């Protein structure tokens, strides 16, 4: 349940560390709360310092104060799977996107929920590290 002012960790290599949710998109049925697999608009609150000569990876680096879109990949609130199981993580995490629903980073460093695949984010699920990927759906 991520809403306005909810903070999330960023687990890709786009340079951001902490983002704060500003708006949850497509809120037909979720009453303004975002869960795993929902797109949100967020503000970058903390970012890694960008060195001047950093052009190795072609991941777009973001700065503090950027307004970007993101998809929620982990929530502290339990998410129900269709067969009745519940899954709950210890923190809220997101992966940054651009306006066309493509990832800004190139790698994901951490566990993601497998509910993303059901909501149509198969690319993110395939980029997550193998032991950290919870394939349950």
């Amino acid at each position, binding site marked *: 349940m991520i809403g306005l002012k909810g903070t999330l960790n960023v687990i890709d290599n786009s340079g951001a560390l902490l983002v704060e949710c500003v708006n949850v998109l497509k809120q037909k049925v979720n009453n303004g709360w975002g869960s795993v697999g929902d797109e949100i608009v967020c503000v970058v609150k903390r970012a890694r310092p960008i060195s001047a000569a950093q052009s190795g990876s072609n991941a777009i680096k973001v700065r503090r104060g950027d307004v970007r879109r993101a998809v929620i990949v982990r929530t502290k609130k339990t998410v129900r799977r269709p*067969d009745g*199981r519940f899954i*709950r*993580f210890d923190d809220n995490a997101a992966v940054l996107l651009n306006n066309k629903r493509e990832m800004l980073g190139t790698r994901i460093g*951490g*566990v993601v929920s497998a509910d993303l695949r059901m909501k149509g984010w198969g690319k993110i699920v395939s980029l997550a590290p193998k*032991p950290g990927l919870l394939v349950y*759906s």
Partner: protein
Amino acid sequence: MSTAAQPYPFSSAAKILPPPATPPPAPLMQGKGLMQYLTQTLPSPDKQKLLTTYFSRRHPLRILPGSVLTVMLGHAPTTFSGVLMSVRRRGLDTSFVLRNVINRTGVEMQFFVMSPHLKNIKIMQRAGGGGGKAGRRMRRAKLFYLRDSPEKMSAISAGVRG
């Protein structure tokens, strides 16, 4: 559990349970003792009834909170292991929560015992044993304090690997 005598004419995916061996007694047809009857007849595989000994209150083989379990699921290609944090006993709706730390992130999953997806439960380490730090008895029924203390989690899991 498939269509026994008469297939259901309106859907091919509907499950028609075979009629019980002994016809239900008269008080049952009036609704007396319905939940007890369902608890005994609905979970048809015998391993579900065996799990009822694992999750009962007084059985000598019951699983205590603080044990390390591995759960084998049906359709999903993976298993999940973790420390048993809580058992919620509600008859057919009995469920338990396992907690694990994967890639420095804590993950908790709640499984329902009577779900057909739950194939097997393996006990890697029982709590409540006599000696050693790993198998000691937890003094709580619900171990939600493990969310805030990773050192206790690693103390429990150290006994499993080592």
